[in-house]
């Protein structure tokens, strides 16, 4: 046997402070009416740093700082200068990408190979992409002289902490808005390092404000009457609550919520690549991906063959230390999330689906869940309907293309979908009928700053990325 020796990425590039304040008006400040909480490493349960929890007065200060910066500085600044700040930020991110990647893996639990090769390159690319828009907005198709919305309240999830920050902040700033961003309570650290990068780039004070905290902080922020725009990525339930809370106001709202994507494998699929796509679709980032291909719909006449290949491939997945360069699946982000994954998986077994995981040793400390598939799943099972947000795949079969489409669409969600077939016209036929905002054909989980991302139905509204992504931050 060929055993890979441990290949840990060094932690020494990250210089963590014992505690972090809120980033308001260009400075790190202590909370006035908030408390503090610890952010832990989900792979070891060690506390990484103490982080401030913003109270209502802190949120008030942050929104006021953003308003002032919008009215006095950023809203008036020529686009070409806003662009230069964004380019600066993009460059600093590239220069400090190893540091950011290691910190992301420490705080989030995701494998270093993903934070290094996926998250960070995309973060920098996002800032580069939107930097270039800042002085070209009149060509974006939203009128001759599109105006920013004002102050944007942005609440982001823990699955791609820095990438979601980039998706939110880059277009907002390019369009001339200022922001108050709340990172998730389990993954605040890279956002705070980003705040340092804003200082390093000499971004004018108040343009970016970062308030750390949990649900209450987020609620206070989105309900604050001083914000003009709310952008949220997270669960459909919270998205619904936010949509209710902005009802009757003038606040503009974009939501990027949950999903239960179908990954459809036809019998003429390029099997080996399809299996890679299935694995990438559900096990990328521990399955903590809103667009994960969590429902495999495989044509019945190739189901055995695909499953056999899939299981063989899953046995190669390396679960463990997120900082090991050879780790494929890292830690589950939190105890609470692990509990939810366990509960839904147990429901899958209880409802009669057949559960399988490859033999796999999990570390003693930290939050871990072995890659898992359920076969014999029907549309009625909870694991086929509810978003698990973990490394758990439900396998269903279909007989005809029409049945595949019907099953794929039979969900309140509509974020993404996958199609695997060698027949071009079948791809286009299927893609036309899928009610999903992103359709990956013969690939999966690909992202790019130029490519609009967002859902149909209860997966939310508005698009992030591309020219479309500007719309949410312009007064159109």
């Amino acid at each position, binding site marked *: 046997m060929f*055993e890979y020796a*441990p290949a840990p990425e060094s932690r020494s590039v990250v210089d963590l402070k014992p505690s972090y304040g809120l980033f308001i008006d260009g400075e790190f400040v202590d909370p006035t009416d908030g408390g503090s909480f610890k952010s832990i490493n989900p792979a070891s349960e060690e506390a990484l740093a103490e982080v401030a929890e913003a109270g209502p007065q802190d949120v008030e200060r942050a929104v006021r700082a953003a308003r002032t910066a919008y009215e006095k500085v950023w809203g008036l600044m020529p686009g070409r200068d806003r662009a230069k700040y964004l380019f600066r930020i993009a460059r600093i991110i590239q220069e400090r990408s190893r540091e950011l990647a290691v910190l992301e893996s420490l705080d989030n639990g995701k494998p270093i*190979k993903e934070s290094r090769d996926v998250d960070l390159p995309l973060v920098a690319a996002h800032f580069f992409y939107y930097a270039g828009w800042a002085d070209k907005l009149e060509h974006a198709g939203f009128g001759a002289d599109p105006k920013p919305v004002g102050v944007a309240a942005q609440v982001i999830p823990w699955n791609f902490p820095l990438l979601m920050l980039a998706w939110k902040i880059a277009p907002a700033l390019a369009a001339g808005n200022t922001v108050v961003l709340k990172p998730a309570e389990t993954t605040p650290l890279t956002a705070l390092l980003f705040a340092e990068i804003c200082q390093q780039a000499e971004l004018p004070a108040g343009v970016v404000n970062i308030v750390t905290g949990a649900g209450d902080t987020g609620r206070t922020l989105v309900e604050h009457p001083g914000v003009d725009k709310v952008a949220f990525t997270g669960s459909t339930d919270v998205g619904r609550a936010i949509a209710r809370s902005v009802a009757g106001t003038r606040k503009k709202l974009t939501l990027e919520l949950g999903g239960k994507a179908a990954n459809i494998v036809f019998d003429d699929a*390029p099997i080996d*690549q399809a299996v890679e796509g299935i694995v990438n679709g559900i096990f990328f980032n521990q399955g903590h991906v809103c667009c994960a291909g969590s429902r495999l719909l495989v044509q019945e006449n190739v189901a055995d063959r695909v499953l056999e290949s899939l299981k063989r491939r899953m046995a190669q997945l390396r679960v463990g230390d997120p900082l090991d*360069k050879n780790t494929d699946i890292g830690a589950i982000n939190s105890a609470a999330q692990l509990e939810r994954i366990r509960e839904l998986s147990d429901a899958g077994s209880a409802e009669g689906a057949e559960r399988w995981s490859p033999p796999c040793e999990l570390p003693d400390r930290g939050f871990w869940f072995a890659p898992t598939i359920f076969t014999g799943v029907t549309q009625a099972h909870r694991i086929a309907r509810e978003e698990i947000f973990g490394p758990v795949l439900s396998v269903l079969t279909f007989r005809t293309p029409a049945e595949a489409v019907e099953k794929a669409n039979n969900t309140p969600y509509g974020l993404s979908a996958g199609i695997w077939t060698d027949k071009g016209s079948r791809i286009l036929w299927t893609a036309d009928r899928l009610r999903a905002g992103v359709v990956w054909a*013969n*690939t999966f989980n690909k992202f790019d700053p130029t490519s609009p991302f967002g859902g149909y139905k209860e997966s939310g509204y508005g698009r992030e990325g591309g020219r479309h992504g500007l719309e949410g931050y312009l007064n159109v």
Partner: protein
Amino acid sequence: MTATTTSARSELSELGRSETALRTFLHGLPGVDQVGAEQRAAQLGTRSIKTTAKAQAIDLAIRMVDLTTLEGADTPGKVRALAAKALRPDPADPSCPHVGAVCVYPAMVPYVAEVLRGSGVHLASVATAFPSGQAPLEIKLADTRAAVAAGADEIDMVINRGAFLAGRYKEVYDEIVATKEAAGDAHLKVILETGELATYDNVRRASWLAMLAGGDFIKTSTGKVPVAATLPVTLVMLEAVRDFRAATGRQVGVKPAGGIKNTKDAIKYLVMVNETVGADWLDPDWFRFGASSLLNDLLMQRTKLTTGTYSGPDYFTLD
């Protein structure tokens, strides 16, 4: 072998009797998506193999090297020196394993055979009008018989790419069958010359064709065309031998050749073998590197691991 694979094997052995059956089978194989295959290969290339794993990999890679010289300027002196190096790659370190085989032109086989006799190092010879394969079948078979008679226990043949690309699969098949017969007990490695096959779909089809016709190994390249072995081509071939064994119970070896110049590359291939077909192929009997300059880099890296200091080309033989 199970009953199913036995019957599958006999069904598959029928395919070679008819052009139509062969074509239907080869064109019915699952397609290969180029972008997906290349991404998978690139991902495997990011594995970080350090310390003990690296030491293990280097020794394995040395044992898998088919130390090759295929030049018009080859002489008995040159190939004898190469054979000597194959036996003792690092004269300074007796713990260094010998390579898998020495690979030369048929005319050079007798000189190499003298040196290798009884050593356990195999003697491979390219035959069948290498590298173009553009000669009458009788001449190719004579070439093969001569190499075996002179002492080669492995024959590296080239397929007729012209016939393959023109869709004359049976002609290619029949040539392999005939060469296998001419090679007798010698192991037959079938060179697909993947750089000329243009698509991964063709690589998969040619792999199956070679295996169906009885090839013991499938090999990427002659080293004589601009594109030699690549990771994705090798991935597709590994998938083919994996699927072929699952279908028939017969294991076939894989040999990437040409362009593999350093330890880092070699380790990427070993990682790919490990994660695509597993431990059964991590053995010189089932995986080889067709290479010349690779060996010295492996030796330098090996010395670095054992002594802690970086060596230089002056400390290793040039042969």
